């Protein structure tokens, strides 16, 4: 484990929050894409 000194909270907090936000964005993007693809496939099969 590398030494972060007295600013460990700040550094880890910044990385944690940013990665959480990016992760949320990626998850939302993929989920919306999967939903759109599924809906479209169902529609094309039916119609």
């Amino acid at each position, binding site marked *: 484990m590398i030494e972060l*000194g*007295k600013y460990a909270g*700040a550094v880890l907090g910044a990385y944690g929050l*940013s990665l959480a*936000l990016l992760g949320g*964005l990626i998850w939302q993007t993929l989920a919306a894409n999967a939903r759109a693809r599924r809906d479209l496939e169902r529609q094309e099969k039916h119609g």
Partner: protein
Amino acid sequence: MSIWEYANPVKFMRTSGAILPWVVAGAAVCTVTGLTWGFLTPEDYRQGSTVKIVFLHVPAAMMAINIWVMMLVASLIWLIRRHHVSALAAKAAAPIGAVMTVIGLITGAVWGQPMWGTWWEWDPRLTSFLILLLFYIGYMALWSAVEDPDSAADLTGVLCLVGSVFALLSRYAVFFWNQGLHQGASLSVQSGERMSAVYRYPLYLTMLGFGLLFLSLLLIRTRTEIRKRRLAALQAREMRT
């Protein structure tokens, strides 16, 4: 071969589907390596370990501005050439830009707390980022409020043009209003001001990684929008018959 060919959604879907895996792989490699490398850099003698935040802060801030510029260009292309994919790309880019702005603001606040002794300072750079976030929120709100997709694309396009002018104006107005604590550009070309190579190379890598990350998210989101549009068109046709 010109970009106008990609006005055809089918062609856009085929090409973007083919390059998407490469872009995603590049984004993952660059971002993960860059951030890990950045995290393992030695401490700065003045800033201690907080210098590691730069590898998130600078690329996110850079992308926040670049994404708005990309939206401006895409809106112009839509307004002038009625290029449908372009309008959808502008729509798809806005949430990514907003998240990048929020990351820039949060990492800035977390960094400013130990360095300047305050979470928030009404500094020109910070303030203009807050204003940029307001513009992103307004833009997205307008997209979701207008029902007819073409009208929504037109209105948000006009808003993006006016908003760009005012975002720029606000940026210079806040300099007039308050002088800041924020240091100047981190990557200036004058050699005396430059940060040392230990930090510079991982920073370049994360900047590239964030750029590719934006590109891959943008492609996926645009594809989602095209599929949604096609679904709506199919459903409308079914209703009529």
